């Protein structure tokens, strides 16, 4: 892009002082956290010089502890997928608390349509429906799940857009409703034994692949399409967006639908990965999905944030969780340390932003 052309009226603008992207801050925080764990491995006597990221026992072909690298991303991929949708909702000035229970409800429903007929040669003991629902093609549960997610999102969005109730309340109500649906579906009984095709969706590193693909898609949507621009505009100033002729109501419905469909897809991957659906699944996922986005630099008042940030935010969680197990931190202290690190990462981000803003 030609440099001169960004100013008008002949004012000077010093390009060299361009503020660096916010995502950079969180990236630094991530490196820092990894470095700390790596250092702890060397310092703590009981760690016997184990390495966090590197392969000190020659278990893998490369110099990295590949199992560690895999689990770091794998364990946040599913909440990460949810977080992609939550990011869009928050940028549009809303919030979505219903994603955790929605995951549970969707998983229960979807699994009922993904049952296999025979388990180890015996009849499936957990089937929810009759024999017609055995060994259905994999597309059936996926479509059912996405449709259910779209429906919940549409309800959320419609209430928020058309009755103007606060998103916090609409989605808190949906939180309870979805948890109710999840428990009612099989009266609390878990649903297991999916078909092999279904089990493939969340097997191995597949969750990570889905996460990356969807992250790219959402990034493009937000940055390069009208959909994204309007999402930012509504979050920045809803009245202005309306006065500028954006159909704010319709757009909000769309945003919540996309978010809920992502959560529903996360539910599919989750139930496939665990080979079971349980009505208690997804506990606190909504909070962690929001936290990932916020660590990624999103503003909860809307109008700012990015998918790249959210992905980095998810990575922070992944590193923390793995790191804690690695340094054998007591579970009680894990909670405390995770709380402290979340606060610390955002403090660092804020501090850099402020310094950047006041830089000469």
């Amino acid at each position: 892009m030609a440099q001169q052309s960004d100013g008008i009226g002949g004012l000077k603008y010093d390009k060299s002082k361009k503020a660096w992207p916010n995502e950079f801050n969180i990236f630094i925080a991530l490196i820092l956290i990894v470095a700390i764990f790596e250092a702890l491995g060397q310092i703590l006597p009981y760690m016997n010089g184990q390495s966090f990221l590197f392969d000190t026992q020659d278990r893998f072909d490369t110099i990295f502890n590949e199992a560690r690298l895999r689990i770091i991303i794998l364990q946040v991929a599913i909440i990460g997928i949810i977080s992609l949708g939550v990011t869009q909702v928050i940028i549009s000035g809303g919030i979505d608390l219903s994603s955790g229970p929605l995951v549970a409800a969707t998983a229960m429903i979807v699994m009922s349509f993904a049952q296999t007929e025979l388990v180890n040669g015996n009849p499936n003991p957990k089937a929810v429906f009759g024999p017609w629902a055995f060994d259905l093609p994999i597309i059936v549960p996926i479509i059912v799940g996405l449709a259910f997610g779209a429906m919940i999102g549409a309800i959320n969005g419609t209430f928020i857009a058309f009755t103007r109730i606060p998103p916090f309340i609409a989605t808190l109500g949906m939180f309870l409703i979805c948890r109710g649906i999840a428990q009612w579906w099989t009266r609390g009984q878990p649903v297991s034994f999916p078909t092999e095709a279904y089990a493939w969706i969340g097997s191995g590193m597949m969750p990570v692949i889905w996460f990356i693909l969807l992250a790219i898609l959402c990034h493009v949507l937000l940055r390069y399409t009208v959909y994204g621009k309007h999402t930012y505009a509504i979050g920045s100033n809803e009245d202005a967006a309306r006065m500028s002729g954006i159909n704010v109501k319709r757009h909000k419905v769309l945003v919540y639908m996309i978010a809920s469909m992502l959560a529903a897809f996360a539910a599919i991957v989750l139930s496939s990965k665990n080979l079971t659906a349980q009505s208690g699944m997804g506990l606190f996922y909504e909070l962690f999905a929001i936290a990932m986005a916020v660590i990624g630099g999103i503003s909860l008042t809307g109008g700012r944030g990015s998918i790249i940030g959210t992905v980095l935010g998810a990575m922070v969680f992944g590193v923390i969780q793995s790191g804690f197990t690695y340094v054998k931190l007591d579970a009680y202290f894990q909670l405390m340390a995770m709380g402290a690190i979340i606060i610390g990462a955002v403090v660092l981000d804020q501090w850099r932003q402020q310094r950047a803003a006041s830089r000469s």
Partner: protein
Amino acid sequence: QTIGASIARFDDNFLTVMRNGMVEYADGLDGVELQVEDATDDVAKQLDQINNFIASGVDAIIVNAVDTSATQAMTAAAEAAGIPLVYVNRQPINVDDLPDNQAFVASNEIESGTLAAFEACKMARAEGLAGGASAYILMGQLSNQAAVQRTKDVDDVIGMDMCNFISIIDRQTANWSRDEAQDLMTNWMSSGEPFDIVFANNDEMAIGAIQAMKANGMSMDDVIVVGVDATQDALVAMQAGDLDATVFQDAFGQGEGSVDAALALARGEDVDQKVYIPFQLVTPANLDEYIDRN
């Protein structure tokens, strides 16, 4: 040797006793390091924790399953990494086809609810209520397997000819919590309907119900209250004559047993793949045997 353990929930009283059993026992052994993680009742998190243990290269893993139908994926993960795995307290769904280096030390959940409910039924008969008795059920978290199972046990017991004089007025969840049970019981009482029995899925809720009934001026001689777990608080309540029956499960022993099994598997020794630990009924009659055990 390093053992990684993932416990379904740290906030659970019973599991806390079991966990302490594991920790104390491991502390006493030389060269054994036990790392305990809290799965916060989240199946997915539990699977991730196992994978983290694998990444750290532990010698054995102990799992107290959040959801016993989610054990297939865990078994597969540990098997692929070649690390021994021991299920504790809750019987995994794939118990019959565990690989060689996996085992379980657990109780059969069906027993606990049945023992308590049946004892309540017998007591009611003894008190001459065989002509008809009404009851409330306090359920645990609906998403929790034990809650679903124990409630079903009650239904099964009152489905028996001997106990079908009992009718259930209402069943609601108090989420394992003493506080919610208190409020729920008070709500029930405010309708004024008379009742004779309270079945609680755990002791905490039984105690909550007892507190509510006492606050309402009811005499605890007129109601039969049964719980499950035999916690300290419950046994004290039984001493005071408030709680009528509960069910004891050797939490401490399970904790120790699981560590032993894990160590043995890690050394490549043969172990019993299935170790069942029976539930035991606790009533005022045999209360003294249990008072110091959990």
